[in-house]
């Protein structure tokens, strides 16, 4: 095939460094890979929308002290149940606290939940799944039956049970959610590992004398990683909602923490006349969940491209 216009004058500077044909070291090679992935991602407007929302969440959480006057904890019973106004953009709740401030600070809580769940679920799911898939035999059977046990329980009910055992609190709620969420990831990782283990690069590693641990962590896991990440971002919405649900039931974040689910719960009693107390946190959850969904969709297109454009 003959390429036209593919080699106009080579780009200079950072872009040139990122697009050059011959990376000079490992760092440049990985940076190039990331850049090409970014370019593909950038071309997808839905993915960019998701990224924008999630990035927005991060910025809001980081700048919470700058964006608000206080932490939304100051009660003012004389000012309770006031509708949105110039002074209180989102109105006040039943204890007179500024809802706008609570929403902004609540974003930190949401991020905390997302982060904690991810760092528990991903490693456990990956390791269990890849080890089971690669080793096969009785190891596979045992690990998968353990996975099945956790998979069999409905998430919210098992979370309830855990939280009852561990006591209410945000960290415990997160652990409970994580423990009930990792199973599908193990399954996913195992499915990928089953395909990957027949590849010739795995055989080559075996012939070289690589230990099984080295093969699983160095060869199999990197191939399973992308589908796990995509699945996690798509699941994020559900995780946030489960945390909100636990908060709603009073088992997760404890007052006065401005967790969005708790805010919906306490606003329930005032839903008809003071709609803003429940509805606004509800919108916040909606937007953030959608952001993660869109981001996950976009990531999947970048990390797992099935449609090539080879001529």
């Amino acid at each position, binding site marked *: 095939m003959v390429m036209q216009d593919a080699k106009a004058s080579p780009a200079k500077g950072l872009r040139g460094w990122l697009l050059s*044909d*011959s*990376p*000079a*070291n*490992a760092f*440049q*090679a990985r940076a190039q*890979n990331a850049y090409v992935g970014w370019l593909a991602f950038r071309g997808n407007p839905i993915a960019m929308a998701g990224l924008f929302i999630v990035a927005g969440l991060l910025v809001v959480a980081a700048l919470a002290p700058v964006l608000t006057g206080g932490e939304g904890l100051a009660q003012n019973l004389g000012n309770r149940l006031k509708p949105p106004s110039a002074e209180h953009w989102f109105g006040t709740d039943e204890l007179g606290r500024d809802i706008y401030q609570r929403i902004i600070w609540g974003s930190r809580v949401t991020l905390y939940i997302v982060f904690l769940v991810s760092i528990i679920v991903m490693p456990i799911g990956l390791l269990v799944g890849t080890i089971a898939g690669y080793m096969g035999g009785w190891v596979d059977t045992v690990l998968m039956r353990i996975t099945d046990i956790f998979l069999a329980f409905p998430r919210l009910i098992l979370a309830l049970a855990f939280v009852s055992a561990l006591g209410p609190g945000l960290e415990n709620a997160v652990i409970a959610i994580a423990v009930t969420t990792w199973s599908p990831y193990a399954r996913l990782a195992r499915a990928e590992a089953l395909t990957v283990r027949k*590849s*010739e*690069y795995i*055989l*080559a*590693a*075996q*012939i*070289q*004398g*690589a*230990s099984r641990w*080295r093969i699983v962590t*160095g*060869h199999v896991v*990197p*191939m399973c990683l992308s589908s796990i990440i995509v699945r996690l971002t798509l699941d994020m919405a559900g995780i946030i909602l489960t945390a909100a649900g636990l908060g709603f039931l009073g088992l997760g974040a404890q007052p006065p923490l401005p967790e969005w689910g708790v805010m919906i719960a306490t606003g329930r009693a005032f839903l008809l006349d003071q709609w803003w107390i429940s509805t606004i946190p509800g919108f916040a959850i909606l937007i953030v969940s959608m952001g993660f969904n869109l981001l996950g969709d976009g990531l999947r297109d970048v990390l797992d491209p099935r449609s090539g454009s080879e001529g």
Partner: protein
Amino acid sequence: MIEVSDLNIRFGRGAAAIHAVRDASFSVAEGESYGIVGESGSGKSTILRALAGLIDAWTGTMTIDGHDLGLRRSKAARKLLQMVFQDPYGSLHPRRTVNDTLREPLSIHGFDAVDERIVRALTEVGLGREFRFRFPHQLSGGQRQRIAIARALILEPRVVLLDEPTSALDVSVQAEILNLLVRLRQVHGLTYLMVSHDLAVVGHLCSRIAVMNRGAIIEETSDEAMRTGAMRHAYTKQLWVASKGYDADALSAMVEFE
């Protein structure tokens, strides 16, 4: 260097068991280039994989450089014998750079002077430094196969197993890779065991050739015999005729071999 006797490999159990390799015996001298040809299902690749230690259940004996090979391979045994696979697109890890791929065997076996060895390996297979940090998708089929060869040689093995190393390559690239393999063998005094379905490639690279059909070695012939068609077994002769191209008359004489 390589001694195989009474090798039997079966897959599956009971009635559905496939007897993939039947009583295979052959030997390869040090520095020799030995070929195994056969059609698909003949068992040729299975023998190679058994030698490479990738098959769990076999009976018989396999010896490399006087050491008996067992089911479990020690690291030292791994250093003696390396393999180049058929598919250049599948034999390199897609998420690892060339540098990672070449570095790994060195770190598994604790070699020193890692950087030097990597650069030397690349030069030996005819690739410059600019390839060192590329990913496999940035390489052509021929370049990937060169990396696979570099990876096989970086541990300084005595024996290299070649599983159809050029079948997936374009004809012009195949010529380059074959020339490279010939040169490397001369320079390092390697012993080659090559499996292929392509008689011309095997005849070019190897001096003695075993012909397999349905799991059994039916004849051991030589490159000389290939040149003139002086084979003993009718199956080998038929293979030889078929490899020369389409010939309607010759075809009518072809039979099925059990």
